[in-house]
């Protein structure tokens, strides 16, 4: 036991150094990208960061706690609207709310971007708690249908609460605060927090609920509380991601937050391996990039003189087929439930290059 403890301490320090080092490498890359890459590529990189954030927090509830939620598009919408409402200046609000003036205290409030993001996270988490309580208290598997319904309802609400959301006109002219640094900074923060949480007793309790709820309860774990907590935790990050998204695209309207977002995230966590944070990160990169690359199928283009019309929906057919096939034949996805560790990576290197073996 003593020996084990010492060994753990040494590897812990090594892993910390390696992690810090790779984050620095990433930051250097971002700095390079910021200076040299064209705006289209930078936009894709920002999207990748936001999708990693969303996927990692979505995986927490679907993969780690094993509760099937379809709420991300709703949470994104809530976060985006909350944050946008708080960054717009009173003059802009006066100008753009032309059907109905904005509700009073909101109309004069204006905060810095960071505070608006924090508020977006908190509001989204509170909504998550209000939604999860009735569902988790009685029938966990109704969560899917309640969250799916909520995604539709949130669009209905956004269209009708004119004095808060400006209805179908949406909110325009948001300042493009979100850049590479914001997107990736928050992405790293999310991954850090989520991984730390999963590796604590709270994470173990979540996995216990996924594996066997009855046995978890019998060991003193309040399943209702841990599920609600996980749902709120992931909602917080998705809400902030919504705020980042809003200030990336600078115009938000109810029709922006369709089920497509949720479906993309579902694809990501399934391909990555339900329950694996590492898998979610890898798959978020792959799918976001793939989504861009496959755009040619849906847009008119010219293949060697052959005029291709471009068919909308092709990508989604491909993605739904992939989703079904992965579920049927490769349920573990890329990573199964295993996680990245420096130890396994180093071991893999040692196996590849026997000369380096110590």
């Amino acid at each position, binding site marked *: 036991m003593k020996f084990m403890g010492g060994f753990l301490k040494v590897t812990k320090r090594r892993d910390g150094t390696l992690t810090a080092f790779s984050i620095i490498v990433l930051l250097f890359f971002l700095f390079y990208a910021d200076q040299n890459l064209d705006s289209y590529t930078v936009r894709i990189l920002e999207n990748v960061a936001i999708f990693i954030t969303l996927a990692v927090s979505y995986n927490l509830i679907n993969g780690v706690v094993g509760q099937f939620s379809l709420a991300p598009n709703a949470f994104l919408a809530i976060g985006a609207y909350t944050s946008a409402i708080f960054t717009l200046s009173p003059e802009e609000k006066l100008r753009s709310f032309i059907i109905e003036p904005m509700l009073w205290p909101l109309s004069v409030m204006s905060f810095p971007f960071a505070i608006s993001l924090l508020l977006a996270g908190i509001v989204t988490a509170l909504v998550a708690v209000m939604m999860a309580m009735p569902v988790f208290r009685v029938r966990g598997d109704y969560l899917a249908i*309640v969250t799916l*319904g909520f995604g539709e309802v949130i669009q209905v609400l956004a269209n009708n609460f004119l004095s808060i959301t400006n209805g179908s006109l949406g909110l325009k002219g948001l300042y493009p605060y979100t850049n590479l640094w914001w997107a990736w900074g928050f992405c790293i923060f999310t991954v850090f927090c989520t991984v730390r949480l999963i590796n604590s007793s709270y994470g173990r309790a979540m996995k216990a609920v996924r594996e066997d709820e009855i046995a978890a309860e019998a060991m003193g774990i309040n399943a209702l509380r841990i599920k609600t907590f996980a749902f709120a935790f992931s909602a917080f990050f998705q809400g902030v991601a919504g705020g980042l998204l809003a200030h990336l695209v600078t115009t938000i309207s109810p029709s922006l937050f369709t089920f497509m977002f949720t479906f993309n995230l579902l694809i990501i966590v399934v391909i990555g391996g339900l329950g694996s944070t590492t898998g979610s990160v890898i798959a978020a990169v792959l799918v976001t990039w793939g989504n861009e690359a496959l755009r040619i199928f849906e847009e008119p283009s010219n293949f060697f003189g052959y005029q291709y019309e471009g*068919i909308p929906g092709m990508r*989604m057919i491909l993605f739904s087929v992939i*989703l079904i096939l992965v579920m049927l034949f490769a349920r573990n996805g890329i990573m199964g439930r295993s996680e990245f560790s420096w130890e396994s990576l180093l071991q893999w290197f040692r196996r590849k290059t026997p000369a380096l073996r110590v």
Partner: protein
Amino acid sequence: MDYSFALQQLVYGLTLGCLYGLLAIGYTMVYGVLRLINFAHGDLLMVSAYVAFFGIAIFGVAWPISFIGSVLFTALLGILIDRGAYKPIRKSPRINALITAIGVSFLLENLGLVLIGGRPKSFPAPGLFSGSIVIGTVNIPELSIWVFIITLVLLVLCVLVVKRTRIGIAMRALSRDMETVTLMGIDKDRVISFTFALGSSLAAAGGIMWCMKYPALEPFMGVIPGLKAFVAAVLGGIGNITGAALGGLILGLAEVLIVAVEPDWSGYRDAIAFFLMIIILLTRPTGILGERLPD
């Protein structure tokens, strides 16, 4: 509010409610037997509507043949979906089946989008269903009468099948205890296929009547009715066929009457089902006719 206006709204509410009910029965049967929320169920409504549309408008088939063909096709599709997508993962955790169901639903919707296009098509309702009868000041569309009669007949048939026939009894047994039933020598998969076929053909019947009432066909037309039908099934008590029909009626009436009383709320119409669902979960999660929560 005057008397005839109220009656008029009642007619509309009942019609809508019957359609929700037909869709809800399929949901409730599949959930009762497999504990699976079959997200693709709502999309079957879309498929049946398109098949009937193509039969009449493109191939020029007489409408009764086209309608029957549509019901058969949808029933077959229901069986196919179960065999292809749900059966292989029946033993794995429930979340996997739910994810697959979402995949199937999305596949159907986008196949519709690619094959047929997103522009709404209008459905040519046969003359038999397009007139209306006027009693006093209340205008009763003939379609509404048909919807009411067909729903009632199908509901009674369904209840008889489930209560009286061998396969119906096997269905009920399966919903109680799948393992024991298999041990007793009942072909589980045949019973499940039958469940899907029955549920899907009801969805098809509902779908055809739906697109005569709301004649705009588009690939995503089944999503919202599907969601609401599930709420109706929960409202009536999941697993209970009569309950599903009752839940559908209540939801349909609620949507129509609430908007009739308070026209300002018409924008929130699609949100009513959602709030109803939350209220049921908080007050009576077993639904109106449900007995106890199955494990």
